């Protein structure tokens, strides 16, 4: 699905929710609205959204949402209602509404996975009615990326009942009015203390790229206008030392919502997962502007990306990451690379602390950017995650101590990939095999299990119901690095597939290699049902409208 189409469909929902009441019935707001004072918003929106003596604009003043939410509303006003805007006016309106009627950082943080286009299993939905009522069609985060007055939520539910034939749900109104009200302590607090974005300078950057592992480096942020920035990024792979150089531009909404674009300094190759590819950047900046995290993503289904974390550089010695994720008990002479910034030279073993049972035997090498230490792990060292410290710089839960690998988990544990057609590119999928140890409860697949990092595995695939060992090339191939590529020819059918990781050395209690599996559905990019065309979007299907 094209970005424009996706935007169009999302906008249909947003615009319907936001503006249906204007034509179909008047609301009776009892809560205090948020006055609109921006001349451009008043001029461009006031024709339909009457402004009262307090400055409240009909419907608009009783809603808050993300930059994406306001952007989609504007798109729909242009598309469906003939609103005429210059690009500059559009940016100005989105910026104003995102700042004056946006989300507080805490509110936005909870729904970032939707904005970052991550497939996410939503587990916090309180009741089955809400789950079925909302998530059959969109992520629950889509609803929670809005804040509305109780009257606005009532109107929303009323429209759903009347127009979408959903059963009336006072439960949904009550829940959303309570969980996502217009006025919140978080918003009141943020509105009072929000300040200008002061992000210029050098930032330390760590990233994780599924299938490629850990990266580290820095990002230079330079102002290029009011809340606009230019960026220059240098990253180095922990695994193979390869380097990535990117440059980009970004806008920041409400001083914490980073929305940018960047690409590699070298042209991207045809490989779909090339790290020089142009990417959208979505990041959440901590309210104190000392750190940020988010995702830079690309691909037909936004399936590729850097998971990034930034912290503001300082002159203090700072640990960034370790090259290893775990150490086994009863082992000697383990070499661990500790990547950092402004590390002094020389350092001594006493400067490092891996916790009890892990002794730093010697420093193998040491520069301003890294320390290579040799450590020994006692046979009776406590199992589990532990912090690693260099003097006052601490990396929380940086390394796991384990005595055996109990199982291998393939992530994601379920996924979709897509064949291509004339208008849709292929949807790929990168898998990873992660080793785990049972936690304190002694049971696998429970919350206290300890992640040990990537496992050394061989990859294979198995199509459901197909004969074992039969050729699966007509469905696709999984590479030696766990990268699944759908077949070039669209067979016009869906396939259920196991993506299988078999450990090269770790075995179960029966002496068999540990095996992990992921359930992959390889599917068509579009299908027609009852005269309408449906297109794939992340983990759901979206109605594209009447089939032509």
């Amino acid at each position, binding site marked *: 699905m094209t970005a424009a189409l996706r935007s169009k469909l999302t906008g249909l929902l947003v615009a*319907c929710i936001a503006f249906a009441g204007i034509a179909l019935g008047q609301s009776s707001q009892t809560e205090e609205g948020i006055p609109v004072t921006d001349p451009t918003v008043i001029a461009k929106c006031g024709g339909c959204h009457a402004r009262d003596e307090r400055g409240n604009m009909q419907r608009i003043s009783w809603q808050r949402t993300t930059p994406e939410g306001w952007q989609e509303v504007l798109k729909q006003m242009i598309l469906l209602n003939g609103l005429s805007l210059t690009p500059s006016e559009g940016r100005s309106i989105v910026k104003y509404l995102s700042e004056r009627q946006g989300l507080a950082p805490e509110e936005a943080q909870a729904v970032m996975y939707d904005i970052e286009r991550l497939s996410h299993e939503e587990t916090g939905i309180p009741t089955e009615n809400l789950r079925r009522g909302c*998530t059959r069609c969109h992520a629950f985060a889509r609803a929670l990326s809005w804040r509305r007055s109780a009257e606005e939520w009532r109107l929303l539910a009323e429209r759903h009942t009347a127009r979408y034939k959903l059963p009336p749900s006072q439960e949904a109104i009550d829940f959303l009015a309570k969980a996502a009200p217009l006025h919140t302590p978080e918003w009141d607090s943020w509105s009072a203390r929000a300040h200008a974005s002061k992000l210029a300078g050098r930032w330390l950057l760590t990233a994780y790229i599924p299938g490629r592992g850990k990266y580290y480096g820095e990002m230079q942020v330079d102002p290029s206008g009011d809340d606009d920035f230019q960026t220059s990024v240098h990253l180095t792979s922990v695994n193979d030392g390869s380097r990535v150089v990117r440059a980009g531009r970004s806008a920041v909404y409400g001083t914490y919502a980073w929305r940018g674009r960047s690409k590699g300094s070298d042209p991207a190759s045809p490989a779909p997962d090339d790290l020089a590819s142009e990417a959208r950047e979505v990041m959440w900046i901590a309210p104190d502007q000392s750190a940020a995290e988010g995702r830079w993503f690309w691909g037909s289904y936004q399936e590729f990306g850097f998971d990034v974390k930034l912290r503001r550089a300082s002159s203090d010695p700072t640990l960034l990451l370790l090259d290893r994720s775990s150490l086994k008990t009863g082992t000697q002479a383990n070499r661990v690379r500790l990547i950092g910034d402004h590390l002094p030279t020389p350092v001594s073993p006493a400067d490092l602390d891996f916790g009890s049972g892990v002794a730093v035997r010697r420093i193998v090498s040491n520069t301003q950017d890294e320390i290579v230490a040799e450590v020994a792990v006692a046979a009776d060292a406590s199992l589990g995650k532990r912090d690693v410290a260099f003097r006052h710089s601490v990396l929380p839960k940086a390394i796991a101590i384990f005595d055996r690998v109990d199982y291998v988990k393939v992530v994601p544990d379920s996924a979709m990939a897509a064949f291509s057609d004339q208008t849709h590119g292929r949807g790929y999928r990168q898998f990873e095999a992660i080793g785990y140890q049972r936690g304190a409860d002694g049971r696998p*697949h429970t919350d206290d299990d300890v992640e040990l990092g990537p496992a050394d595995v061989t990859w294979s695939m198995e199509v459901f119901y197909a004969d074992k060992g039969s050729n699966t090339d007509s469905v696709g191939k999984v590479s030696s690095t766990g990268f699944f590529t759908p077949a070039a020819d669209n067979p016009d059918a869906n396939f259920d597939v196991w993506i299988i990781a078999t450990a090269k050395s770790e075995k179960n209690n029966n002496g068999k290699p540990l095996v992990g599996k992921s359930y992959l559905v390889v599917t068509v990019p579009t299908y027609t049902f009852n005269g309408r065309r449906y297109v794939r979007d992340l983990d759901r299907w979206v*109605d594209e409208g009447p089939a032509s």
Partner: protein
Amino acid sequence: MKNSLLTLLAMTAAVLLIPRAADGHHGLAAFDQKTVVTLKGTVTDFHFVNPHAVVEFEVKNDQGQVEEWKGELSSAGALAARGWTATSLQAGDPLTISGYRAKNGATSLWATKLLLANGQELKLGGGN
């Protein structure tokens, strides 16, 4: 304006009425729904995932050979609503499972009933 809005609402209604792929991405055409088979076996793995949870289990056939079977259940979301978790079935658990076997003879079935060793029935979700 009115026509535009009605069109918008109609299109939006269609969007909102689409069932998620995760709630049932394929039918039962691949399974022989005329015959229910019942098997006793031992769980080797359990995948609590969408679009279908899957239990893998071993069964000793009449010749005493161990066969590897797979039982498809409904989605993890639907099962969770019935109290299932990722540890509802664990490797080593004995089970009795009934369902429709794959038409092509594969050792796969679409589960319709699932009993633990103590006789407790684990309720299956929609589609099962």
